[in-house]
C-alpha cells in the first residue's frame, strides 16, 4: 500500500487561506457573543444597582466591541463621557458619584447594593466561558 502526500505552492496557500477564514469566523462569532454577554451582565447589574432617582442606572452604557492585538474587549458600565446623567435631586453628574456608589460597602441601600457591576460579573463568570466556547464551536462547525 502506498500513500502519497502531494504538497504544492497552491495547496499551502489554500490551506493558509482556509485557516484565515476559520480565524475570521471565530473572531466574528466571539465578537457577537461578547457584545451579548456585555448586555447580559448589564441587565443583571441593573437589577443590583441602588435606585433613588434612577440617574445612575440611567447612565448605563455599552460600547462597541474592540478588537486589537491584545484580544477582544467590550466596555460596559455606568457614566462614561456620553452616558453621564444629572441627578435631578442634587444636580451632580452621575460620573461624580457612581464609583462611590459601587465601592462604598458600608452604606445600606433601601434598594440594590454596592458592587452591583462586579457582582454581576463574578456571579456569571461561568456563563462567559460557556458563551465563548459556544461561539468557537459554532464558528468551526463543531
Amino acid at each position, binding site marked *: 500500500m502506498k500513500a502519497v502526500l502531494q504538497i504544492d505552492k497552491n495547496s499551502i496557500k489554500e490551506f493558509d487561506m482556509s485557516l484565515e477564514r476559520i480565524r475570521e469566523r471565530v473572531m466574528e462569532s466571539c465578537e457577537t457573543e461578547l457584545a451579548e454577554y456585555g448586555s447580559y451582565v448589564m441587565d443583571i447589574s441593573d437589577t443590583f444597582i441602588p435606585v433613588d432617582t434612577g440617574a445612575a442606572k440611567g447612565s448605563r452604557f455599552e460600547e462597541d466591541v474592540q478588537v486589537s492585538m491584545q484580544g477582544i474587549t467590550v466596555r460596559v458600565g455606568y457614566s462614561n463621557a456620553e452616558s453621564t446623567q444629572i441627578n435631578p435631586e442634587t444636580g451632580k453628574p452621575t460620573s461624580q458619584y457612581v*464609583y462611590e456608589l459601587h*465601592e*462604598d*460597602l*458600608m452604606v445600606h441601600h433601601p434598594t440594590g447594593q454596592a*458592587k452591583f457591576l462586579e457582582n454581576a460579573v*463574578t456571579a456569571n463568570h*461561568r456563563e462567559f466561558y460557556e458563551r465563548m466556547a459556544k461561539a468557537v464551536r459554532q464558528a468551526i462547525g463543531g
Partner: protein
Amino acid sequence: MGDLLLDIVEYLDSEDIVEGDAIDTFRDFRPHTPDQVVTLQEYAGPGGFSYGEGSARRFQITARGSTEDPNWGRAKAWEIYNALLFEEGVVDLRPDHDIWGIITRLQTPHKLFNDRNDRAIYGFNVSFTTKSD
C-alpha cells in the same frame, strides 16, 4: 471555623501595621471616630470551583485619614497592600486552624471617595482563594 477578616487583622497586627481589631481596625463597620481607621469588609466573590475544593472570596480594605492629614489613608493602604504580598504565593494565616489561601490584590490602592466629613478613603479589593474558612 475561623473568621477570615479577623485573621487578616491579626496578621496585620503581628506585622505592626495596625494596632488591632476594634482599636484602629474594624470589620464590616467604619466608625465615625477616630479619623484614622482601617476597615475590612467581605463581599460576594465568585464562589466555588467546578472541580476540586476551595472557593474564591473577596474583601475590601480601606484606610481613612483625617482632613488635616489626608495622606495617612493612602500611605496606610499602601503599607497593607505591600504586606499582603507573600513570596511563597500561598499564605498560611493560621496554621492551627488549617486556613491557607492565595491572596490576589485586585488593584493597587487608590482613592475610593471622600466620606460625609470630607475625609479621603483609600483602598483596594482583594481576592482570597481558600480551601476552608
